[in-house]
């Protein structure tokens, strides 16, 4: 028994990961219903966003409430680039995503450099202020963004039956990228540095940990994924407005998912997104009319914070560890 468990521990995670990945790859092919693929694609989007947020909010302990601004910048960059171009085969807009991700990250670094002079609570407020600044710019720089009138992108010429698939796989690729980053960070010295920063930043600085470089790198990595997700979202909707592209509720959604699943863990954000995102879509579709939707959402939030403040995975892991210790 013990040996079997040991072997599971060595190979289990990899196998489970592969099986999960295979299920996600096959999903849109096996499931023909477009609405399910749509639910899947938004779930993957949130999983990628939550994993990306986790790099900053979880590993480094800097709870950014401004990530929706980078999502919006990615969305606007994509939309503005393509608004007067034709999509051709429809795959072109996916290829502009990597440069957009990098460009937005380049903008994010100086912002983070300023914002990260402050800690936790103030940092959260500064970043949400930044979000409002970006939203105001999206409204006011009419020449560039179209202001409140929004920007249109070319509509993808994919066939209706499989219209969602390219977007789905783009989001899946982003999730994998975010997970690869997470994994890479955890297993590199950067992860060590970030955990040190989260624990005691001043102490980390005093023992020569390159605190600034570590924080900025994590932030930049996180923004790359966030901005690209914004780009895919914009292309999928084909029309964006400032208040939807740069939406504080998107930031809050990322935070909720990460907290629900478990901060600073590799799989926690994914778990959180896989629970919350479909539930949110389904509940609104099914029970939204009852008006109690917001109240239910608030209640869920409070329960999570009070019952498992560290998130589902760490709480679960503790249970298992305690049970094994007893055995």
């Amino acid at each position, binding site marked *: 028994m013990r040996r079997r468990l040991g072997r599971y521990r060595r190979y289990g995670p990899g196998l489970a990961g592969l099986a999960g990945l295979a299920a996600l790859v096959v999903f849109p092919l096996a499931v023909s219903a477009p609405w399910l693929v749509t639910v899947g694609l938004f779930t993957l989007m949130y999983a990628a966003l939550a994993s990306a947020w986790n790099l900053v909010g979880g590993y480094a302990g800097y709870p950014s409430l401004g990530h929706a601004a980078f999502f919006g910048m990615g969305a606007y960059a994509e939309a503005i680039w393509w608004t007067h171009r034709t999509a051709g085969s429809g795959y072109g807009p996916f290829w502009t995503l990597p440069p957009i991700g990098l460009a937005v990250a380049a903008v994010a670094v100086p912002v983070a450099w300023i914002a990260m002079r402050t800690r936790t609570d103030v940092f959260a*407020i500064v970043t949400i202020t930044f979000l409002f*600044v970006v939203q*105001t710019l999206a409204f*006011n720089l009419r020449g560039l963004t179209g202001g409140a009138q929004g920007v249109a992108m070319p509509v993808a010429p994919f066939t209706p039956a499989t219209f969602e698939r390219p977007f789905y796989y783009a989001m899946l690729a982003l999730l994998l990228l975010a997970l690869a980053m997470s994994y890479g960070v955890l297993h590199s010295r950067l992860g060590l540095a970030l955990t040190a920063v989260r624990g005691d930043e001043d102490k980390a600085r005093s023992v020569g940990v390159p605190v600034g470089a570590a924080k900025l790198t994590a932030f930049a990595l996180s923004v790359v994924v966030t901005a690209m997700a914004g780009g895919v979202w914009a292309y999928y909707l084909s029309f964006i407005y400032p208040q939807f592209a740069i939406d504080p509720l998107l930031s809050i959604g990322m935070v909720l998912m990460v907290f629900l699943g478990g901060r600073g863990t590799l799989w926690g954000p994914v778990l959180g997104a896989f629970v919350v995102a479909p539930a949110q879509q389904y509940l609104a579709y099914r029970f939204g009319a009852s008006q*109690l939707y*917001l*109240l239910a959402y608030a209640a869920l939030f*409070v329960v999570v*914070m009070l019952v498992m403040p560290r998130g589902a995975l760490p709480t679960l892991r503790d249970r298992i560890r305690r049970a094994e210790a007893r055995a």
Partner: protein
Amino acid sequence: MHEAVQAVILGVLTGGVYALMASGQTLIFGVMKVVNLAQGALVILAAFLSHSLFTAWGVDPFLSVLIIAPLMFALGAAVQWLLLRPLHQDDAALLSLLVTFAVALGIEGALTVVYHTDYRTTRPAYVDRSWRIAGYQVGEVRLAAFALSLITLGGLWMLLSRTRFGRSVRATVQNPVAARLLGVETARVAALGFGLGAATAAAAGAVYGMVYSFNPNSHYDLISRLLSVVILGGLGSLGGTVVAALVMGVASSLVGALASPVWSDFSFFVVLLAVLLLRPQGLFGARLRGAL
């Protein structure tokens, strides 16, 4: 010139109302290091209660504060006691941010169920009256609102500086550990502090309901401004908050009148970010954070 002076007058009056709204926020931060994202929702809740009292029984909005403030106090104390106190200490700052956001959502949801999303205004008979002072129009309601803000802020200051409760609060603000050792029951002080912060929202809400139109979503517009005021004022400093609120009121009003209102919030946010760049502790932040 005339426009600029009129804008400054308006800005000061508006700033007074924001000072009142933000004073509760800064008090709550000072006592508990909790960034209360529900403060805007509490103000809107109070605005609805005051509106209902006025439309149903004709209670004057200014008098309604006397009825609403105790209710809000109880609500605030309950939020702290039931939702914030049990939070895990290590992450209290971050978790409380999320819990208070959930409270804001909850209040918004409840208000939507009861009142729907139509805009409302509380309209006592004097709401349209205004005085002409040296060629400038000054609304009576705004002046009264400003006066109420001053009175409430003054009362708050008296309470903090002259009473035993106030001393406990200030002790908790400056050093919670030492305060506990000296026999201050910090959990109770925190609940009272949160209650007090919510009670100031009662006054702010009654005023807000007369000066502006509002619906359950209005708290989103409020909260970013309140947070900026509180940070600019140096998190937890009552005097700093008042000054920051006036700065914001005047700046927004001037930019709105002389340049364009689409840039007025923006310019304030940029000022805020610039200040943080130079002085991360805010304009008036004491080195030891949280001197009320």
